[in-house]
């Protein structure tokens, strides 16, 4: 029996060892595949999320840049509004100065020139000039201007003082006889026109040290 058992034991060991080797190989291969696949998967997934992180960084930069741009627009608007306010202040101050000039002789000269230039602009004819209740205009002055216009334009011109008063700090409103042509040259209107015409010059004086 002993002589028969030993070869049998050998055969058993051989069969089981082979099986064990095969089993180990199967498990090792599976482990290897498992680790390889998991590693590849992890690398891929990390790459995928790295892209998302990079996108987030880029988005973050955009958030900062956008906010800076918005703030700059906002502060520029504030500065522009302030500048507008200061320009308006200069015009308000100019009106104050004009109110004081109205009481001087210089204003009378100005008014005479204003009536003359307005009448000439209207092409002469029968004209009516309106002033505010505080401005007295001598008829002699109106006649003098009318004669000058008649001569210069070769159009018979008369200028009469209107009975109604204009509601303005100073200056005039002139109409033709029919009342269909009217030129408003009150101080307020002249100031408004000046706002457009000399705004940049005023801004230059204001904002240049």
């Amino acid at each position, binding site marked *: 029996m002993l002589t028969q058992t030993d070869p049998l034991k050998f055969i058993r060991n051989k069969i089981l060892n082979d099986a064990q080797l095969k089993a180990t190989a199967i498990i090792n291969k599976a482990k290897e595949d498992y680790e390889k696949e998991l590693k590849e998967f992890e690398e891929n997934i990390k790459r995928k*999320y790295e892209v998302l*992180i990079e996108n987030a960084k880029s988005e973050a930069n955009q958030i900062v840049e956008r906010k800076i741009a918005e703030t700059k627009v906002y502060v520029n608007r504030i500065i522009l509004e302030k500048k507008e306010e200061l320009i308006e202040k200069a015009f308000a101050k100019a009106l104050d100065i004009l109110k004081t000039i109205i009481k001087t002789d210089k204003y009378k000269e100005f008014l005479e020139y204003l009536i003359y230039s307005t009448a000439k602009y209207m092409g002469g004819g029968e004209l009516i000039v309106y002033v505010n209740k505080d401005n007295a205009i001598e008829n002699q002055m109106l006649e003098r201007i009318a004669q000058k216009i008649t001569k210069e334009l070769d159009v018979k011109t008369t200028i009469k003082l209107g009975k109604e008063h204009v509601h303005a700090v100073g200056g005039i409103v002139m109409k033709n006889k029919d009342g269909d042509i009217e030129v408003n040259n009150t101080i307020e209107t002249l100031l408004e026109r000046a706002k457009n015409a000399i705004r940049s010059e005023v801004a230059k004086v204001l*904002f240049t040290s």
Partner: protein
Amino acid sequence: MSIEILREIKRFEEEARKIVEDAEKQAEELLKKIEVDKRKIEEDVKIKANQQITKIKEAAIAKADEESKRIISENEKTLKELIEKTERNVNNAAEIIVKAIIGETD
């Protein structure tokens, strides 16, 4: 060989087949486990990435607010200087306006 020996060998072979089958089962289990582990890895990576993304965005918002405050603060200084400087020039500007209106008589 006797039948008994052949039977023994067949038993050994059966035992060997079981060993291999067990190994195959283990391998199969491992492959099944891989899907679970993948989900776990993805979940971990996703959580970490989202945390990072949240931090990046929070930092960006904080930086943007800080920059915005800095610009506004600088602007307030600029505005103050502008007003101080300009106040001195208002009279000159007003004179120019008056000249533009009354000056036509000159």
